């Protein structure tokens, strides 16, 4: 059952075109649902140690950004999926919806337990989500703090075409350009999967380089800094030179900061490129070629005017991919999920075409 006090979703003016939603959340409601997929010794361990799951709290219950008040679901997957269908998949006639499970096994310090939880989650995703709605695609949850184990988990699902990316929380133990993560990129390349870098994570150190923050607002809004650090690291450390076909999506990163990062990196690269001779083209070139950004939450005013400027500054109409970030609450009416004022061809690109070619859908 779903308690729903908000407006019933209407088909917005911009729909009628193909829609691919690149960020839908399927939450693991409790450890209980994973029990059927965990070995007996892990079930006992969880009971004996009173382990309640990772301590990440990227989307605190009760924060208005997390879910629109009154839309909390009851029941387990059925309630979530019903809400997702009613609010997004059906009214937008979504062709494909990419699930981004944000269960943070990456914050579990025992790598074997983290790996077992990741495997359990992926089996749960396959059986309870992918098997139930053919429009859904999913992201492989992997213990990315242990890259070899993470690669093993990616390999486990690489042949299932319904898994279209491996997801890593943007907050990491060390920056993602480091070669310690190569097994993950090798596995993604092996299976032609996107690597999704997603808002959040709890690696154990502060969410900003200047230290711990006092409020959720700071953490929520300052995450763009972490994304910038990761993009810089991926380019500077030569990840795209080592894995020339690697595709990286930035999920819930915002997008308006990207042009300034591109300008700055290009500018400094001209004088400092001797430190990184493997970076053979301007960094913005790598970004345009390898990186995409999901739309919601948009970090621009609601009118499409500023977003159009950003797209111009990105110098690419291929980088933005539509996403509602459901059930997180970024707009009051579904119509507002997509900015007005984009030309038909640009709208088509952002709504579906960019994601279709990036995720090979």
């Amino acid at each position, binding site marked *: 059952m779903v308690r729903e006090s908000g407006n019933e979703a209407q088909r917005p003016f911009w729909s009628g075109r193909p829609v691919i939603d690149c960020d839908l959340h399927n939450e693991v409601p409790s450890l209980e649902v994973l029990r059927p997929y965990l070995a007996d010794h892990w079930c006992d361990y969880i009971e004996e140690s009173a382990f309640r799951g990772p301590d990440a709290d990227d989307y605190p219950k009760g924060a208005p950004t997390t879910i629109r008040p009154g839309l909390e679901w009851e029941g387990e997957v059925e309630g979530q999926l019903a809400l997702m269908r009613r609010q997004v998949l059906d009214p937008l006639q979504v062709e494909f919806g990419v699930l981004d499970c944000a269960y943070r096994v990456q914050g579990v310090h025992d790598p074997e337990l983290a790996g077992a939880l990741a495997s359990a989650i992926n089996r749960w995703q396959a059986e309870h989500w992918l098997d139930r709605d053919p429009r859904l695609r999913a992201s492989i949850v992997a213990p990315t703090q242990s890259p070899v184990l993470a690669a093993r988990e990616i390999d486990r699902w690489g042949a299932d075409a319904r898994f279209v990316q491996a997801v890593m929380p943007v907050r990491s133990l060390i920056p993602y350009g480091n070669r310690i993560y190569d097994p993950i990129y090798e596995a993604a390349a092996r299976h032609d999967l996107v690597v999704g870098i997603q808002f959040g994570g709890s690696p154990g150190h502060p969410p900003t380089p200047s230290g711990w923050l006092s409020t959720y607002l700071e953490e929520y809004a300052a995450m763009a800094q972490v994304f910038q650090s990761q993009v810089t690291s991926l380019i500077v*450390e030569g990840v795209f030179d080592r894995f020339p076909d690697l595709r990286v999506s930035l999920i819930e990163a915002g997008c308006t900061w990207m042009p300034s990062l591109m300008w700055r990196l290009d500018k400094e690269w*001209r*004088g*400092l*490129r*001797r430190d990184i*001779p*493997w970076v053979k083209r301007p960094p913005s070139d790598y970004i345009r070629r390898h990186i995409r950004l999901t739309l919601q939450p948009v970090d621009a005013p609601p009118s499409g005017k500023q977003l159009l400027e950003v797209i111009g500054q990105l110098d690419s109409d291929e980088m933005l991919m539509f996403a509602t970030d459901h059930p997180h609450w970024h707009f009051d009416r579904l119509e507002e999920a997509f900015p007005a004022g984009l030309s038909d061809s640009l709208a088509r690109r952002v709504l579906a075409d960019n994601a279709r070619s990036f995720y090979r859908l």
Partner: protein
Amino acid sequence: MAEHVVATLGEIPPGGRKIAEVEGRSIGVFNLDGQFFAVLNRCPHQGGPLCLGQQSGLLQARVPGEYSYTRVGEIVRCPWHGWEFDLKTGRSWFDPVRTRVRSYRVRVEMRESEGGGCGEEAGHRPGPYRAETFPVSVRQQYVVVEIP
């Protein structure tokens, strides 16, 4: 086209350089392993004194760790912002088509010199360089820059 004697051969040994004023322009003349090259001493970026920069090789890498270091001494880096230019062509490393520094043809000429001639007898305009002369005839090689 005007030709200017800017140095004697011995003045710019291999690996050496000389900044000369020619027709109001500051030009750097470089001896790269016996071959001479000249570029304008003005970085196309912000006008920095390019020819005072560090001369080094071309550092490349296919991937991190696979360094290749070639053409040692043939790349000059502007002392202001580190932009790299190929002394043989004037082209920048990062944007060789659009970002380039003016380069000039240089050649070495043997001249019979008597008194303070410095090549004027061959039709060259007098340059800033005045060779030390002696009242005897000497065979001297000059470095000559062409200004188109």
